[in-house]
């Protein structure tokens, strides 16, 4: 069996990263100028990596699917970014942040990676402040913090409800500076179509110019994938419309392992689904759980009356309200991690206590915060979120509780990477949400921004040199080499095949149907039977897609339907991979909840003896079940415990 080498440096946990940096290989300035790096993606990870590598002197080619790097979906992150600054003097430390993240991830993350993440977290805040990111401040002029789920300290830095936006604009500014200096070449409205390999190494990409529709070839000494997660497989998610998994799937098909695909984060506080015309779900920031209290009616008849529109939330007296998170998890209350909060909402709704006409919603109530703090303070803290909620639902959250329900939000799984963020393909790196490394089976709030920027600013710029140092004698490639020509031909053939189907169904109609299968079988609660059904249904839908999709327009032209079809083809492969992984993992952990494996209280039941590993899926060809490889997780300095948010 193939051995998985995560290349974790030796030494004590707290010294590993320092040791690594002290002994890694470096590239001298003259050689940097001769080395090219392709960075795909311009979100927090991609933009920060491209900017940093450009500053260092590499020649960077940076690809962006939107019309500007400023639009990447990192921009939509609302709540904040974690760091172990301990400004609040509440007992925080690098170790605490590390520990909370490992525990939050249900002991399914790699210890050394997580420690490094916590270690560099403070530098991220320093970096962003230096860039002019306008974080919220206190009257004394120092930085303010708030609390997020899964932590008992206040370590989250924020910029109103727009932290992701401000951090992304910071990275975008740094990137713009490098474009101006000529170290980074920016390609906007381009989408990566394939990875090009030469002699077993990643050496370039085929990308489609989305305006002209033409395929183009790009060569480099290394390729970095920062293309985000696969949440949009489900059709409805909090992801932006262009978020897709195609770049990752192409890498997977070329031999990069895909790790932990079953770990999907379902965010507890999203605006519930309405109607069947909806295109996406909107997240309401986790920060709302700082002051909002989550409840459903304690009496079934009250829940029924609300579902039928005979009663409203305000008709239910306090004593008849079930603040189920506070009841079940007294120590963390409304600030339990996301997976726990989502499952608890599902449990109540499944038992018939859900509100909304669908019965698929719970209340998030600010009445108590308004009584305690006054409407002005609540407005100052969450005003823009309240406004957004009212725009969408036409309900005033100052007067009525919000209605929320869990939705697909983030994917912890991703391309497998070693400690250096290199995939199983030499010269191919993956950063940010696109990789799997730091969040285990569940990500804590405000940690995605931290990881994206950690990878891009403070990890990859070091580790990629260890690879590139061996490449200094390799001259620049021509993109006319046969490997490039061949790869381009294959992509074109795939596009031609899709255009030639001329069936009867739109891409979206198939994607919606596929999304339903995923949500019901590979969603919040999973069973062996459901997963097996999903796998066979996905086979049918794959057939339906490849024989009955209809794409209007031309192949060599701007063609939105063709773009969507190419992405759906890969979402279908991704969905099946998720189902395989979820079926194989016969335990519950973090975002992966197998209904067969739960405690009598309904908590996730892990099986550390048999499943304390990273599942790495190795592609074996079209329509063939991929091979499962295992990277054992070794906890050298962490005591592995059952997660407990009750006491």
């Amino acid at each position, binding site marked *: 069996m193939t051995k998985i080498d995560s290349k974790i440096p030796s030494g004590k946990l707290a010294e590993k990263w320092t040791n690594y940096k002290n002994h890694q290989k470096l590239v001298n300035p003259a050689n940097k100028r001769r080395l090219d790096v392709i960075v795909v993606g311009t979100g927090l990870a991609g933009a920060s990596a491209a*900017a940093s590598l450009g*500053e260092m002197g590499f020649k960077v080619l940076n690809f962006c699917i939107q*019309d*500007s*790097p*400023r*639009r990447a*979906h990192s*921009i*939509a992150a609302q709540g904040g970014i974690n760091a172990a600054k301990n*400004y609040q003097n509440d007992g925080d430390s690098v170790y605490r942040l590390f520990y909370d993240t490992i525990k939050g991830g249900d002991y399914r993350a790699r210890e050394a990676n997580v420690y490094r993440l916590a270690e560099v977290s403070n*530098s991220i805040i*320093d*970096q*962003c*402040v*230096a*860039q*002019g990111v*306008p*974080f919220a*401040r*206190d*009257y*004394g*002029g*120092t*930085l303010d913090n708030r609390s997020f789920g899964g932590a008992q300290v206040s370590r989250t830095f924020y910029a*109103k409800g*727009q932290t992701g936006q*401000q951090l992304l*604009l910071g990275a975008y*500014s*740094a990137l*713009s*500076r490098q474009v101006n200096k000529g170290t980074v070449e*920016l390609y*906007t409205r381009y989408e990566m179509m394939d990875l090009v390999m030469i002699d077993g190494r990643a050496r370039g990409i085929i990308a489609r110019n989305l*305006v002209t529709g033409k395929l183009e070839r790009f060569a480099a000494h290394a390729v970095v994938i920062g293309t985000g997660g696969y949440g949009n497989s489900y059709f409805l998610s909090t992801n*932006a*419309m*262009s978020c897709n998994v195609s770049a990752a799937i192409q890498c997977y098909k070329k031999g990069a392992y895909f790790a932990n695909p079953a770990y999907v984060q379902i965010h507890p506080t999203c605006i519930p689904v309405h*109607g069947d*015309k*909806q*295109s*996406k779900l*909107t997240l309401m920031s986790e920060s709302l759980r700082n002051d909002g209290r989550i409840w459903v009616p304690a009496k079934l008849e009250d829940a029924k009356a609300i579902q039928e529109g005979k009663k409203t939330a305000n008709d239910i007296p306090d004593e008849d309200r079930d603040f189920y998170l506070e009841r079940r998890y007294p120590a963390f209350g409304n600030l339990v991690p996301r997976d726990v909060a989502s499952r608890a909402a599902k449990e109540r709704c499944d038992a018939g206590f859900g509100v909304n006409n669908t019965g698929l919603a719970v209340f998030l109530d600010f009445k108590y915060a308004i009584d305690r703090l006054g409407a002005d303070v609540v407005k100052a803290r969450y005003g823009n979120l309240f406004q*957004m909620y009212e*725009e*969408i639902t*036409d309900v005033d959250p100052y007067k009525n509780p919000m209605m929320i329900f869990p939705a697909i939000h983030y994917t912890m799984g991703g391309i497998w990477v070693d400690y250096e963020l290199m995939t199983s393909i030499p010269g191919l790196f993956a950063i940010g949400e696109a990789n799997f490394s730091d969040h285990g089976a569940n990500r804590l709030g405000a940690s995605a921004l931290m990881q994206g920027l950690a990878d891009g*600013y*403070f990890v990859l710029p070091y580790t990629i040199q260890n690879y590139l140092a061996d490449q200094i004698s390799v001259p620049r490639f021509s993109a006319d080499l046969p490997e490039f020509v061949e790869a381009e031909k294959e992509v074109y053939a795939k596009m031609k095949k899709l255009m030639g189907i001329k069936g009867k169904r*739109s891409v*979206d109609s198939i994607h919606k149907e596929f999304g339903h299968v995923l949500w019901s079988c590979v969603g919040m609660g999973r069973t062996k039977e459901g997963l097996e059904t999903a796998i066979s249904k996905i086979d049918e839908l794959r057939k339906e897609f490849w024989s009955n999709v*209809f794409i*209007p327009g031309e192949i060599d032209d701007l063609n*939105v*339907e063709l773009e969507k079809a190419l992405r759906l083809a890969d979402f279908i492969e991704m969905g099946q991979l998720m189902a395989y992984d979820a079926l194989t993992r016969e335990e519950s952990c973090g975002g992966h909840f197998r209904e067969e494996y739960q405690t009598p209280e309904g908590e996730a039941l892990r099986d550390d003896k048999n499943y304390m590993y990273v599942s790495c899926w190795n592609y074996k060809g079209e329509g063939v079940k991929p091979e499962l490889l295992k990277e054992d997780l070794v906890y050298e300095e962490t005591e592995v415990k059952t997660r407990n948010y009750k006491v």
Partner: protein
Amino acid sequence: MDKNISFTLKVWRQRGPKAKGAFESYPMKDIPGDTSFLEMLDILNEQLVNEGKEPVVFDHDCREGICGMCSLYINGHPHGPEGGVTTCQLFMRKFKDGETITVEPWRSAGFPVIRDLMVDRTAYDKIMQAGGYISVNTGVNQEANAVPISKDVADEAMDSASCIGCGACVAACKNGSAMLFVSAKVSQLNMLPQGKTEASRRAKAMVAKMDELGFGNCTNTRACEAECPKSISISNIARLNRDFIVAKLKD
């Protein structure tokens, strides 16, 4: 519950930047009021695809009002007549049954049409590249709390930084001026102690690039502020003018 409405959609269709465009009308039936404007266009496109026709091309991405990608000129207003929202956050309940809704792209020399309702806004990137940053490298930086910044200044910088770069200000301006966009970025950075060192250079470089790219002059009509989905204030423009004059005087 929201009611369903039926209406006529008059949409600008244009094959490419040089092609001649024209309005096409589409009857829309029984659209639920809780459908967003872009979801309504999804419904139209689904219909068009099912009829074997090419869908209407429009820019959109996050659909929660923050990425700045959506850019429709609806009934004579960027992002529609409803103030303070982007097109993706505009809901059909705001329109009347039987109405004719006109949808156009941003129309401005600085933003050529790519197709239908999709325009090219790379000019904004170019202005940013000219100076929309603080020149600091990745690496060891000063401890974040070393320089206190008063809450007022931080909040004001945040307000300026709320710009989503959608281009509504340019589309709204009869001169096609990009002053609101440029001034918001210059203000955010010039206001903060970190950004002061380069304040003059930044103001001059960004204004010069804006002029070079063919954006018009500001004549204080305030249309930009009125139509900005994020309510960016024109006091940013005053601030930029001040910084710009100071910079020029120093030359």
